[in-house]
């Protein structure tokens, strides 16, 4: 018996153990910052240890700090279990992150870029380098890696839970590489905690997660953005610069091949013979040191022989060159109108057009122009890997761009649906100098995650803000057995959500396109921020829908003297797209909150701050969400995705945009409440939130009183003041008992109650016959938003 942290967990365990037993996937929403991670971990570990199979747990999180946090929680959980059980269990829990974070090699670890670390590590650890050394050649190897071979392969590190920090320390002590220790120990772990990418990015998943058995329990934590992660992992951007680099890479390869032909032609001949037999055969030599992997190669491809016209190294290189040249033609094509000299500058700018194309039509034109067929294209990525391995190249960072091109080739020839090629003349929205980018964008989040659902019998997708739940199974293409949103039980009302729809002058406020820049609206927003900076102790976080809007509103506030007024009460700090500047601002913000000066942090709802950074306790007593954070709807990629969702999953454009905006808003709100003893005010400042509130997570909805959904600024201020007064009362940990933490007796009482309820339900069911399920209407708001009208124009 283990003590569980809180009531949601009990409900959870009842339903959830069933799913683990029966197999199936689920989506769970649990209030963030209230021990979600530890509840899930404790439950699954208890299940795991109870049954003799000891099913492995794979726990995926987003950032390195979240991974480290989860590891720490797992560690204390295991300690707790050991105390309760009176013995140490035979248990291993490890975390994995990139080489850059885990490298110990004195010079390699100092490299700034992760790619360079990977490349340099490979040159120090690759199998053929070792062979060279054994032949007596003078090559440098990494001692941390070599030492691993002296240990028992299944016992590289003692049992227990190792945080990343702990691994680094142990590695330094024993002079062994933490990265490879973790990689090699993965089959022997009970719990693995790593980043999403190790499962979702096909290029990495194939390498790292291939050996994990089918009965693993997979958890995606903080998964409200999982669809975007999936899409990004299969999308590729190619610029003219990267194409130029790819050409250079191809030329390098050509030189290397000629070299090898004169010195060691046998190796090339060997490779050729293997390729005749098929990729799988050629693949046998593939190991953890391999250069790169194939993206989502269908299985039949691996069994098939490589097409005859790319079997020979020189043929393949010529093939690649032709392909890259074709892409260059495409890229310059986007610039065409710019160069017609008769037009004036303005019209030239305007006629620069965006081209979008489906994979089949791309392939058709490719074939017409360069005689490149679809089939050899599909083999491109894998063929390149094989060649790089045969040539025993060490400086693989030179081939990064070429690899990207090859991956693109494979993807474009493999999937004809769910992808789109978009050629844009400008790299970003703000760029003025044309620099064409070829976006190969994945539109279907289900493609990347499908292997995960196919492979593992229990996948859990969870987050603090993952409403509406049914959106996720739809977008990711899977069926759930449990789909549940848990509310929070707290001893006191520890957060106050409010919707402010108008200013004190009764003028409606909104970031809608038509009125967002009207002085009355901007002034009202300014007053709201000003009032709250007066009444809130310590820190306030303000979120804007976009950088552009933030900039314009700040300059208007400057003119209205609002900033000066705020300045009297708080420091003002601003997030910028530059991450260094932002982290400096954050640091200053924290200092100001700690020393009592207090500060306002102005940031963007889709920026770095809104995702990864917590504002617990005095770091965030109020959060104000100015406007509904809709996406920039003019983006071609977004438009294509919206269309795809509508056509394939029957998700309407407005529904998706609204859902997406609300999940970001909820994510912003959740930033301030990070624990049971924390408290904070959440202000949603836009008229349109009133209708969208049903799309908020259940735990926020529950706390949002009807009377608080249509406030003016002065009403909100009064309400907030009252709330802060009650929060100022002393609060003891003891008060929580029986409400948000339970003793064993509480637990038993709860069980009885549940059982009684069940019996009653059954009786009722018998009396009534079958009861129809209640229809829920998640999307109340069908109103055409001003912002969204822009989509069609």
């Amino acid at each position, binding site marked *: 018996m283990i003590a569980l942290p809180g009531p949601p967990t009990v409900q959870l365990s009842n339903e959830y153990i069933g799913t683990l037993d029966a197999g199936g996937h689920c989506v769970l929403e649990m209030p963030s910052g209230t021990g979600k991670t530890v509840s899930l971990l404790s439950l699954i570990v208890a299940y795991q240890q109870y049954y003799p199979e000891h099913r492995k747990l794979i726990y995926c999180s987003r950032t390195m700090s979240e991974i480290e946090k989860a590891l720490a929680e797992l560690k204390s959980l295991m300690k707790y279990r050991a105390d309760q059980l009176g013995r140490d269990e035979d248990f291993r829990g490890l975390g994995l992150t990139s080489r850059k974070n885990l490298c110990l090699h004195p010079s390699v670890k100092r490299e700034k870029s992760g790619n360079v670390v990977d490349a340099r590590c490979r040159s120090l650890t690759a199998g053929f380098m070792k062979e060279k050394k054994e032949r007596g050649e003078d090559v440098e190897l990494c001692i941390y890696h070599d030492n691993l071979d002296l240990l028992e392969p299944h016992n590289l590190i003692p049992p227990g839970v190792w945080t990343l920090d702990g691994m680094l320390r142990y590695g330094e002590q024993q002079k062994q590489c933490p990265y490879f220790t973790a990689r090699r120990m993965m089959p022997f772990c009970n719990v693995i905690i790593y980043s999403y990418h190790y499962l979702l990015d096909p290029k990495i998943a194939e390498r790292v997660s291939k050996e994990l058995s089918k009965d693993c329990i997979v958890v995606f934590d903080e998964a409200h953005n999982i669809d975007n992660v999936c899409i990004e992992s299969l999308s590729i951007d190619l610029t003219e610069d990267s194409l130029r680099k790819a050409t250079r890479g191809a030329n390098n390869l050509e030189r290397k091949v000629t070299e090898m032909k004169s010195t060691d032609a046998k190796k090339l001949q060997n490779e050729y013979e293997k390729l005749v037999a098929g990729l799988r055969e050629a693949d046998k030599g593939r190991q953890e040191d391999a250069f790169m992997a194939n993206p989502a190669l269908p299985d039949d491809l691996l069994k098939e022989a490589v097409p005859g016209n790319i079997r020979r190294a020189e043929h393949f290189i010529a093939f690649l060159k*032709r392909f890259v040249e074709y892409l260059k033609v495409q890229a310059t094509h986007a610039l065409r109108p710019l160069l017609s000299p008769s037009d004036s500058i303005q019209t030239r700018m305007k006629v620069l057009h965006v081209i979008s194309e489906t994979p089949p039509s791309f392939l058709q034109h490719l074939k017409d122009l360069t005689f490149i067929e679809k089939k050899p294209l599909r083999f491109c990525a894998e063929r390149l890997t094989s060649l790089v391995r045969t040539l025993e190249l060490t400086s693989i960072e030179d081939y990064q761009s070429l690899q990207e091109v090859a991956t693109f080739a494979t993807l474009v020839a493999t999937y004809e649906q769910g992808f789109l090629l978009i050629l844009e003349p400008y790299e970003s929205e703000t760029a003025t100098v044309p620099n064409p980018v070829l976006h190969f964008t994945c539109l279907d989040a289900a493609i990347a995650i499908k292997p995960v659902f196919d492979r593992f019998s229990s996948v859990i997708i969870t987050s603090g803000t993952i409403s509406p739940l049914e959106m996720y199974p739809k977008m990711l293409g899977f069926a759930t057995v449990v789909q549940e949103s848990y509310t929070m039980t707290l001893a006191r009302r520890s957060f106050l959500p409010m919707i402010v729809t108008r200013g004190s002058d009764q003028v409606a406020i909104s970031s809608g396109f038509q009125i967002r820049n009207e002085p009355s609206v901007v002034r009202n927003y300014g007053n709201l921020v000003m009032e709250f900076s007066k009444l809130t102790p310590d820190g306030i976080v303000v979120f804007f829908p976009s950088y552009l809007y933030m900039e314009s509103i700040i300059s208007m506030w400057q003119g209205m003297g609002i900033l000066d007024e705020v300045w009297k009460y708080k420091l003002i700090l601003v997030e910028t797209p530059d991450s260094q500047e932002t982290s400096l601002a954050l640091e200053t913000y924290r200092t100001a909150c700690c020393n009592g000066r207090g500060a306002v942090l102005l940031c963007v709802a889709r920026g770095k701050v809104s995702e990864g950074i917590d504002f617990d306790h005095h770091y965030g007593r109020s959060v104000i969400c100015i406007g509904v954070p809709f996406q920039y709807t003019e983006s071609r990629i977004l438009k294509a995705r919206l269309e795809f969702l509508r056509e394939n999953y029957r998700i309407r454009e407005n529904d998706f945009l609204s859902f997406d905006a609300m999940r970001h808003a909820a994510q912003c709100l959740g930033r301030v409440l990070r624990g049971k003893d924390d408290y904070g005010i959440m202000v949603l400042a836009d008229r349109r939130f009133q209708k969208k509130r049903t799309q908020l997570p259940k735990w926020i909805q529950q706390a949002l009183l009807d009377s608080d959904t249509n406030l003016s600024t002065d009403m909100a201020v009064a309400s907030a003041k009252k709330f802060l007064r009650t929060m100022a009362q002393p609060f003891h940990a003891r008060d929580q008992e029986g409400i948000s933490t339970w003793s064993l007796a509480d637990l038993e009482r709860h069980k009885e109650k549940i059982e009684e309820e069940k019996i009653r339900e059954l009786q009722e069911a018998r009396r009534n016959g079958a009861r129809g399920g209640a229809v829920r209407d998640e999307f109340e708001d069908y109103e055409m938003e001003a912002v969204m009208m822009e989509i069609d124009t």
Partner: protein
Amino acid sequence: MSKATARGGVPRRPGDEDDICPVCKSSRYLNPNMRFLVNPECYHKMCESCVDRIFSQGPAPCPVAGCNRTLRKQRFRKQTFEDIQVEREVDIRKRVAKVFNRRQDEFETLDDYNDYLEEVETLTFNLLNGVDVSATESKLTEYATQNASIISRNATLEHQESANLEARQAAEREEARLRREAARKEEEDEKKAREEGRKEVLEQLVHGNKPAADVVKESKRVELLKRRRAQQSRALPALPSGTPSANSNPFTFKGLKSTAAPTPEKPYDPFGGLTDERSYYTLQDYYEHPWLDRARTDTHITAGGYTVTEYCARAMFEAFSGLGVFVGEEVAGRGDLPGGNGAGDAVAAAEAAARAEKGVS
């Protein structure tokens, strides 16, 4: 915009280092409209005005030092690829692909096909790199003359395929456009309906004498119903039925054989494949039977329409009709029925059925 044509030539970007005509040495800086042309004879690049100047009078030798090939004006064209080698390679490939256009389904095994591909590639490489050019060229022509019919057949096939693909893509684009339109319209309608509903409620509130709460509640209910109906209609497969082959037959490379048109549906056969064709005997026109002779000739008999052939056909049919029935099989088949193989079992089964019926009622 027709993509195929728009894709043809590509202007060079300003700032490229090779922006000086190697012949007249004028640069883009002086002449921003300068365009370069190449001739597939030697692929030496020169500007348009040079081409006009040198080759307008008829064929002339290439002005690039050491080249000396004779060039004609009409063969000059814009350069497609940045890399002139690739430009040349593609020209050669075009020639080779015209001749070697075998298809995978023409080969016994995939390995054979792959070997073929490799061989063609090697030939191409020979031409590209100037290895054994004359031998390769003669191989090419030899093959072309020997396999002329196959080559032209495959070329037609290829042409057809790409035409089909084009048509399909056009159809798909059109469908997508229609769907997009429909979605937009639906949204607009909904909005309009909602606005009207709202107006109605206001009217009722102003003029009617129902309690306000009732009016609002009623209108909400109506709206909910409407919305649900709309959702239901949306849930139905709204895809307009396009050409059936468009969606069911995606663009895969196994699809090489997919060009065969779907077999037309056979006419409906009410007998499910049973025919009255004789499979055990052939009916003769004449059977020797003395006692039938009278029936053939006696007008008393033939006057009524009696024909001997009719009689013979029936007699033969009856004699052979039992041959299609295999008693052994039928008995065995009966044994598979649930409940065993006897009359007693049949009774038991009937009883069971009766019991079941009673249980239901």
